[in-house]
């Protein structure tokens, strides 16, 4: 009897040690991850803190993380002298419309390519695949002249021209459609007499919710952070997107770091907030595609 008891005691001690070890390892990992996370967002923290610094403090050495005399002057100057809000509006409009376009085209194309087996479609899919590998920067110059001939430079339409479709979006939806929408479901609906459009609208789309959510986030941020294309398409100050406006931020011949940081920080806030709100969507969406192909 005592043997059994001591066995149990030994086991319990063993268990306690293992649990302790596990917790220690967990703590260690937590510390590492915590430090790493802080390191990752540190540059952004610096940016925000610089935005509140006075010009003199910007030149201080060693640089401070928390401004000694925080000031709102930089923000005031930026808002007064540059069309920052206009740029943000431009970016929002561009990113929003791009997201809508990409979601629409990806959803329908992905569905058709995934669920309808026709030779023509195989050819079309091959074409999409082939062009998907070509980086945007490769063909953006001729595309620019196309925009020019359409007369849509310096406008949201011009910006959109490069961001109406997303090959990855089509693939994503197609994968999703293949993996998570059983043919039987669609056939059953057809037998019941449902029209194709109705099937797409009421059956397929709801099932694609997760993937569309993820795609929407991807598309939005892709347009929001686009740089090379808006850079060449917009040449008037009012039509800049936020990225281009900040990059070309110039007051005469010198660049005021404090003001630049203020402008950058002002833009950062919507980006970060948006992302924090949409993160779940994104992760879920990627997971639901079965990214194993």
């Amino acid at each position, binding site marked *: 009897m005592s043997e059994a008891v001591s066995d149990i005691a030994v086991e319990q001690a063993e268990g306690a040690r293992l649990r302790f070890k596990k917790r220690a390892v967990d703590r260690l990992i937590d510390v590492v991850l915590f430090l790493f996370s802080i390191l990752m967002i540190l*540059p952004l923290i610096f940016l925000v803190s610089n935005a509140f610094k006075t010009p003199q403090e910007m030149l201080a050495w060693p640089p401070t993380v928390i401004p000694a005399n925080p000031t709102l002057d930089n923000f005031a100057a930026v808002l007064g002298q540059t069309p920052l809000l206009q740029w943000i509006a431009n970016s929002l409009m561009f990113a929003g419309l791009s997201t809508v376009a990409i979601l629409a085209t990806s959803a329908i194309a992905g569905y058709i390519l995934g669920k309808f087996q026709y030779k023509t479609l195989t050819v079309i899919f091959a074409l999409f695949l082939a062009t998907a590998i070509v980086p945007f920067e490769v063909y953006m*110059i001729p595309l620019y002249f196309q925009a020019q001939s359409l007369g849509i430079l310096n406008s949201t339409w011009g910006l959109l021209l490069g961001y109406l479709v997303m090959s990855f979006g089509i693939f994503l939806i197609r994968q999703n459609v293949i993996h998570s929408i059983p043919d039987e479901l669609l056939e059953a609906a057809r037998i019941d007499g449902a029209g194709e459009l109705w099937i797409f609208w009421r059956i397929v789309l709801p099932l694609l919710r997760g993937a569309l959510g993820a795609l929407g986030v991807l598309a939005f941020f892709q347009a929001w952070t686009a740089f090379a294309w808006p850079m060449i398409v917009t040449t008037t100050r009012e039509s800049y997107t936020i990225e281009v406006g900040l990059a070309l931020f110039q007051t005469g011949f010198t660049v005021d770091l404090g003001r630049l940081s203020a402008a950058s920080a002002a833009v950062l806030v919507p980006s970060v907030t948006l992302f924090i709100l949409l993160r779940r969507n994104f992760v879920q969406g990627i997971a639901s595609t079965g990214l194993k192909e």
Partner: protein
Amino acid sequence: MLKRKRWIFAMLAILPTLAIFAYVRMYPIADTLRLSLHKWDILSKKKPFIGLANFQELMGDRLFQEALLNTTIIAFGVLIITIPLAMVIAALIFHRTRSRFAGFYETSVFIPHVVSLVPAAMAWKWIFDARLGPLNAFLGLFGIQPQAWLFDPVLSVVCVIVLCSWQALGYAVLIYIVGFKSLPVSLYEAAKLDGASGPQSFWYLSIPMLKPITLYVSVVTLVSGFNVYAQAFVLASDAQGAPGRQVRVLVLDMLENSFRNYRVGYAASEAVVLLAIVLVLTLVQFTLLRERGARS
């Protein structure tokens, strides 16, 4: 009858997307290939055909070679840093996935990927600043001399690599986390019973099983590395008053040739070379990572 209706629906439905694709993708790509064989200075109406002359000139162009070298170094540099680091961080985060901090880790790792490029680059520009930046201040604590990060030919490239990796990491980590979540738990339990430690099962189990994800992430990272532009533009730019040593990358060289030297045909030939490189690299990666027995 029904079949016919279905076919009509499919064709009509895909038509708009196809039309858009043709106009904004296929046509310009074909046009790039076409332009690379011509000479055009934007302003004139003449676009004479000059065969492969652009490509010949490109091969001997010192600036193009510099751009190619820089871009290759940056792309591979980012790849080498991002993949291993992303895998490890993802593994760690996955290990702690039930802790309440998991969301915080994921978010802070991913935020660099979604914030606007330019503000982020500005932040790093300040960090790397030789006189005012905290990096030199930090290194000073260890007695290391302040470096002119953005002016040194080698260090400025390193700076671009660091910035790009910082941004690329988040996306890779997220994808890897999803990958980890889909790995079969039973295998790990079996391994543990056999006495394998955490790192061991990571090395011998996780890495091989994550091959498809590694393939995807590495293709995406490498391709976007070759297309680097914004980061080089902001960090190591031309701008008066905020100078740094200009890190010449392919896209920058291309745009300069097209819009500053007014040589669109020449720039198009550069674009074609860029495309060829990307294609070759993608193919190579597919072969390499597929061959070694990827399991889904």
